[in-house]
């Protein structure tokens, strides 16, 4: 979706703020992190659905409320969307309905192993990659109205395949609950001048990971 999360290349946000407490500003932020990870581990929604929920906040909120409030509001919206809680329960902070069955609940003794296992996104596919390292590719001019990981600033630009990462879960499908639909994933190297014009040295580069459906031959 063409939204405010896709901010690569904007220059309107002022200087970078360096804060003394760089990881957390308050204890509730830690709780939001833990709640988000623990609910993510139940397998009710996937990573792409979770990112999509964060991007779906009001743009003015997304830009102003701070990182962990984005996570909090998105978590609440996911809990409601997947009907694990009701709006009344959220308002009251108490359970009024029976709990819904979950695929799993993360127990403390499994935290370390679960985090170490992570969630690899590479998948075996029976297609061959369309492109090889060194191939010139163009980013297609696609504007999907749902979740995507194609940043606007590379659309219509040409680059060179730098790595072939293998086939990975395709976020554009996975975010919609349409399955993992794994696609070949490439690291594409763009000349900085191709993206940003005369302002940049032509020896500089920007590398972006792009799934095959984002690309076309050129």
């Amino acid at each position, binding site marked *: 979706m063409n939204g405010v*999360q*896709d*901010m*690569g*290349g*904007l*220059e309107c*946000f002022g*200087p*970078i*703020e360096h*804060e003394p407490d*760089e*990881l*957390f500003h*308050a*204890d*509730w932020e*830690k*709780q*939001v*992190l833990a*709640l988000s990870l*623990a609910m993510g581990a*139940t397998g009710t929604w996937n990573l792409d659905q979770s*990112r999509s929920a964060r*991007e779906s906040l009001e743009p003015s909120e997304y*830009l102003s409320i701070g*990182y962990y409030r984005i996570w*909090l509001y998105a978590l609440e919206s996911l809990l409601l969307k997947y009907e694990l*809680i009701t709006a009344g*329960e*959220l308002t009251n*902070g108490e*359970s009024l309905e029976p*709990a*819904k069955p*979950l695929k799993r*609940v*993360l127990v*403390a003794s499994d*935290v370390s192993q679960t985090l170490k296992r*992570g969630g*690899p996104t590479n998948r075996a596919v029976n297609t061959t990659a369309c492109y090889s390292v060194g191939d010139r590719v163009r980013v297609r001019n696609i504007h999907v109205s749902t979740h995507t*990981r*194609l*940043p606007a*600033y590379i659309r219509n630009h040409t680059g060179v395949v730098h*790595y072939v990462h293998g086939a*990975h*879960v395709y976020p554009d499908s996975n975010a919609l609950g349409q399955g993992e639909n794994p696609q070949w*994933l490439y690291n594409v*190297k763009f000349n900085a001048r191709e993206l940003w014009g005369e302002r940049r040295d032509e020896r*500089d*580069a*920007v*590398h*972006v*990971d*792009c799934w095959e459906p984002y690309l076309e031959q050129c």
Partner: protein
Amino acid sequence: MTSKDDVHTHHHDHDHDHDHDHEHSHLDSTALRVRSLQTLLVEKGYVDPQTLNELIDTYENKVGPQNGAAVIAKAWSDQSFKQWLLDDATAAIASLDYCGRQGEHMIAVENTPDVHNIVVCTLCSCYPWPVLGLPPAWYKSAPYRSKVVLDPASVLEEFGVSLPAETRIAVWDSTAEIRYLVIPQRPDSSEHLNESELRKLVNRNSMIGTALATPAKHHKT
């Protein structure tokens, strides 16, 4: 406040908690909102308070840039490890027992006199957790995410880094589940240092690309 207190305050420790929520009403209301949500999810049996404590403890105390520093110091000291890191970073890093969530697929990019690498996630906040821990606030902020792809030199300037004119800049935008770790240049005059001394020169930002490794001559060993 310890991380163990965090998830228990709503039961029995209101006064203590108020000290930490400050007087700002917005913060207070968010803290209450989080506490209320947590109470609900615990009551439902969806989350276990001990699990929450364990998760917070992991990212507050166990996983952090000291892990990445160990990887880099080993690469600086051991050419064959460095080659492994460049060829298959996921496996090389896993050999030191750093692996998993938000670091499932790693690539290491090496800074040289010719090229300086900087990592960003313009779309959200992707960051290699197993080696660097959680991202600092600035990494997740709009000013950094937006500007570093367009004008990395001025971002580096904001971080107090100036590069030689001949050094080109490569920015890595983490749009997929591949996580990038920068191998900073080993500082001059660090030849005499052993691996554990070298770790102290590997600051977090040097592994993101917004700093150089800490100079050896300024470092007390």
